[in-house]
């Protein structure tokens, strides 16, 4: 309807001072990207424990430390993005539980606390006062940390859903995309960390997770790209930023190719050739491309004027 009226009215805004366009910029992209790797590694550790526990010894320490570091990167950028970072403690003393930001902050804090314990156990294995068998305790704790990793991964989708102004971000889709981002980057990270410590069978397993995550995420993005604009005019207007030939259209396709299409092709090649270099390249591309994909999807809804 709007297009017809626009042609008839020739309406042009001649005075308005809308909000500056992008409020959540690359700091928030860093937040989502680092969190995906952090929680994704935990998912992959848990899967490895269930599939082939004997290979855990090669990656327990490195994976939990990298996950812990990435979660701290996530928290650091979350804090740095606040306009009043020194009031962060208000979230813990004046929590408002309808907010996904509050729920996420609390859960992420507990998650990082548990990860710290697990990392400390692994580093001070021989002198650990908490337990006589650090590996066994680590594996027991891993179950609970994995459970917690699910909502920690998903809460950002909750924030996006609560951002009523941004029609593009729908809860069911974003939830799936958050989980897929975690499995994509988590499998890529553990392939890079595991290296020769992982057997061919395990590498195949994580390569499959990487390839399938890329495929599913790509399908969802393409579905939104093609069909999203058939439901709501706001979504049509937002998707126009990635359908034209502007900078976000270029970034969108770079992201899709680097994060999803190339890793899918490379994983398929790896399964034929068994070349570790190809799998390593797929993992690096997936992690790098994920940043671009997340950034474009974060920014484009903010470009639409709300008034």
């Amino acid at each position, binding site marked *: 309807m709007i297009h017809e009226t626009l042609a008839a009215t020739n309406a042009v805004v001649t005075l*308005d*001072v809308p*909000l500056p366009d992008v409020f959540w910029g690359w*700091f928030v992209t860093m937040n989502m990207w680092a969190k995906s790797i952090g929680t994704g590694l935990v998912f992959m550790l848990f899967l490895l424990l269930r599939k082939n526990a004997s290979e855990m010894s090669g990656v327990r320490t490195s994976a939990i430390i990298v996950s812990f570091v990435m979660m701290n990167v996530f928290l650091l950028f979350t804090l740095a993005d606040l306009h009043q970072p020194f009031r962060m403690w208000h979230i813990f003393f004046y929590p408002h539980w309808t907010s*996904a930001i509050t729920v996420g902050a609390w859960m992420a804090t507990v998650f990082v606390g548990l990860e710290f314990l697990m990392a400390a156990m692994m580093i001070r294995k021989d002198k650990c006062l908490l337990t006589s068998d650090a590996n066994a305790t680590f594996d027991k704790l891993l179950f609970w940390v994995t459970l917690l990793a699910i909502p920690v991964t998903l809460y950002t989708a909750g924030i996006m859903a609560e951002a009523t102004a941004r029609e593009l971000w729908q809860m069911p889709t974003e939830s799936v995309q958050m989980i897929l981002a975690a499995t994509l980057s988590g499998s890529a990270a553990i392939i890079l960390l595991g290296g020769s410590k992982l057997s061919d069978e395990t590498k195949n397993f994580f390569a499959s997770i990487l390839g399938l995550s890329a495929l599913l995420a790509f399908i969802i993005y393409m579905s939104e790209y093609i069909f999203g604009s058939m439901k709501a005019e706001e979504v049509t207007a937002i998707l126009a930023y990635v359908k034209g030939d502007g900078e976000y259209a270029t970034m969108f396709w770079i992201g899709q190719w680097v994060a999803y299409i190339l890793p899918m092709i490379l994983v398929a090649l790896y399964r034929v050739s068994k070349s570790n270099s190809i799998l390593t390249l797929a993992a690096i591309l997936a992690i790098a491309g994920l940043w671009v994909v997340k950034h474009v999807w974060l920014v484009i809804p903010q470009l639409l004027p*709300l008034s």
Partner: protein
Amino acid sequence: MQLGFLVDLHLCMGCKGCEIACKVENEVPLSTWRLRVKYVDVGTFPETKRTFTPLRCNHCENAPCERICPVSALHYIENGIVNIDKERCIGCAGCVMACPYGAIYIDPETQTADKCTYCAHRIASSMMPACVVACPVGANIFGDLEDPKSNISMYIQDHRDVQVRKPEKGTNPHHFYVGASQVNLNPLASRREEGYNLFNKITTLPLGGHHE
């Protein structure tokens, strides 16, 4: 009591008196607005006209900003106003992302969220909001939506073309318009073209934070 606002766009002449009164009353910093009047030019020369639409916080009954605020800095008060506690705000900009009306901004001086509060401090002293007092044509009608005999309730009863902005968002705004068209209320119903503004190359104060 549920306070609400109604703007009769048949009466509004775009003088921006409400904007200035709001700025002065609430000491709104340069480059930010709690209330602003949007101008949209319609038609093709010589058959053209200019429309005026005052835009402010809609004080929604189901306010997305209140829901997303992690520290309850945005909160309801008993009379239905969505108020803000700037001392509690952590500046996460969640409310800025949630408000479908673009009514919330980050105050460049305090680095906290801010918006129209229907002049809650004046109402507490039984005074009308500053913009209502300043309007020379009585286009701003303010009152209790739960009182059928209040000015605003009677205005809503007497007019058939009462509308709210973006009803599809389910926010139940307590801010109404009479005499509005798509051009006034739907941001997608008008173009924004470089060089067509009354004032071009508007500069704004640095906002702080980390924006692109």
